């Protein structure tokens, strides 16, 4: 099939740009670990409160100096409330849901993941600025969805 010369140039340019994009996100994934939250770990949603680590929601410091935060989402709140994080802490969030699908998003940071019942989501972030951040549910979960929010304070 014949392709017009100008169309060949245009398609080479277009496909070339896509190749550059793909190379960029792939390099970022392999070299810097920039992959979307893709934790594969299931949990019995009826027994979350008895299943470690969700039996003790909150911030926990690990031996290597980094932190883990265990969160439980349910209609229409997150536990723990008003988490306090020391400045510069590298925190890995573990989140699961007791009921329906929720979102777990801290705007202005890279913290953003879906939370589905029966699965554990993880997402990591290093908090380098002081201040009070908003934590919101960004997936519709019911009639009071707009009130499902909390705060995270870095100090």
């Amino acid at each position, binding site marked *: 099939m*014949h392709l017009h010369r100008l169309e060949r140039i245009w398609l080479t340019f277009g496909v070339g740009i896509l190749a550059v994009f793909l190379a960029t996100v792939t390099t970022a994934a392999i070299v810097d670990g920039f992959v*979307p939250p893709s*934790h594969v770990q299931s949990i019995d949603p009826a027994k979350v409160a008895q299943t470690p680590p969700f039996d003790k929601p909150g911030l926990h410091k690990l031996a290597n100096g980094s932190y883990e935060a265990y969160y439980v989402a349910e209609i229409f709140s997150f536990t723990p409330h008003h988490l306090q994080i020391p400045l510069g802490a590298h925190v890995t969030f573990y989140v699961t849901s007791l009921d329906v699908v929720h979102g777990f998003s801290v705007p202005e940071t890279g913290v953003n993941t*879906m939370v589905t019942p029966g699965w*554990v989501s993880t997402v990591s972030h290093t908090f380098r600025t002081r201040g009070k951040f908003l934590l919101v549910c960004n997936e519709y979960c019911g009639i009071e969805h*707009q009130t499902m929010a909390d705060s995270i304070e870095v100090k």
Partner: protein
Amino acid sequence: MSAAAMRAPVRSAYTRAHAVAHENILVTAHVYTATAALVIGAFFGLLQGLSRANAIVIPASFDYYRVLTAHGVLMALVFTTFFITGLMTFATYRSIPRVRSVTLGWAGYLVMLLGTIVTTLTILSGNATVLYTFYAPLKAHPAFYIGATVLVAGTWLVAADLLMNVAWFQKNNPGKRIPLPAFCSACTFVMWIIATIGVTLEMGLLIPWSLGWTPGIDVELTRMLFWYFGHPLVYFWIMAAYLIWYNVIPTTYNGKVFSDALTRLSFIMLLVLSTPVGLHHQFLDPGISAGWKWLHTVLTYGVVIPSFMTAFAIFASFEIAARRAGKRGFLGTIRWLPWKDPVFSGSALGMLLFLIGGFGGIVNTSYSMDVLVHNTMWIVGHFHVTVGGPVALSFIGAAYRLVPAITGRKLFAPKLALAQTYIYFVGMLIMSVSMHVAGLLGSPRRTSDVTYFGAAGAQSWHVEMVGAAVGGTIIFISILMFAVVAVGTRFKNERAEERDELAFAGTDEQAMQAPPVLDKLGRWAALAIVLALVAYAGPIRDQLSTPHYLVPGMRTW
């Protein structure tokens, strides 16, 4: 003379003209149903926009999320689908002129309508406030799922009718190419059948569960089946817009299809590549490993290529026609185009919006970059500037040609129609840019109120919501203008000169013949199914082999 002999001439007098009259009534039913859904859906959209800007308070008795569900279903599933079934029935029937029966076509329309009515009433009654994505374990009334399944079943009847017409053509015209408008329609519906298998399987899980026959639901599996359908749904819309851009728009400036072969190749690529890409809607889902998500990133980049080809073909068609008319250069071509014809301006303004939409789409599908925008207002801005932009505006523009053709009446208030396309464009630009900005500032989507009790992180969002409400109000006014033109044309007491033709553009004489293999739709359908299986077998096997839990349903509204 026997009674039979007396009847015989009457029967043989059923001619192509009679068939056209029947076809027109059928297409009219589709197009006006789509228009009704658009107007009602737009009204709900207006309420949402004003509510989010805190300009009005939607009463608790008819809450925001019910309005949002109705808006999503009526726009994304009802308006688009009925317009596409109408448009493609028209494109197939007219490009394969034949003394045909429209019985199967009517069966399809009526089944679609039945499903739509059941689903819409269930939503309005407040028993299905699950948004148009109906993510389990939110549990709607069974009538919601059953109605939606019936709607899909109706589209299958329409698909069967159109594909049987194409098969009839191939059988009776050996060696001839399928006429291009019918070819584009056939590719779209083959793709649609493959895509809707996903949502049908999902309904096979949801319906027994909503009836209480099964105790729980596999949440991630239903999400994956939904998005297996949900992204090709987007391409269902886009292929219809492309059908208009390739086949109809050149007629507004006496142009031709740039290349028959490349048009066919684009539609075949869309047929094959539209389905195996759905995981890019689930980049942030747990339970799906990063490798599968990366594979879907690559495949989604692949489905961008036929859009690049389309962009080239459209502008090439513009330029070739402009040169024939003695115009030169970029500005010469642009100025020469028929900007005062609403059929042209609808699609052309839609193409401009698609520049934003395509750019945003590449961001969304770029793997880890999605983290920055996922479930923020950016996404809402993105799909309004795509399905609400190039798709809806091209449909509306095409309706200004289609409605006179099928009703046999002159367009009512053509100046109103022309103004409508520009007003819609401005409204959509304001609304979608505000939404994109709100998303970059972190504002979540699907939320009735973004104030979050005055929290510091939420203060920058309100002004963007005001922008979205202003844009949304402008769009609503323009949709009312469209409704006035559509209804006015139906009752206008002035016959159109050309009753039975919506002219489709011809192909350039010098354009090369397409390889015959492109018309072998069965083979391409098989390839599309294989690719879909390759893309989904892995992630589904992974999920089913991980110990996973069924979740009981909940009504949280």
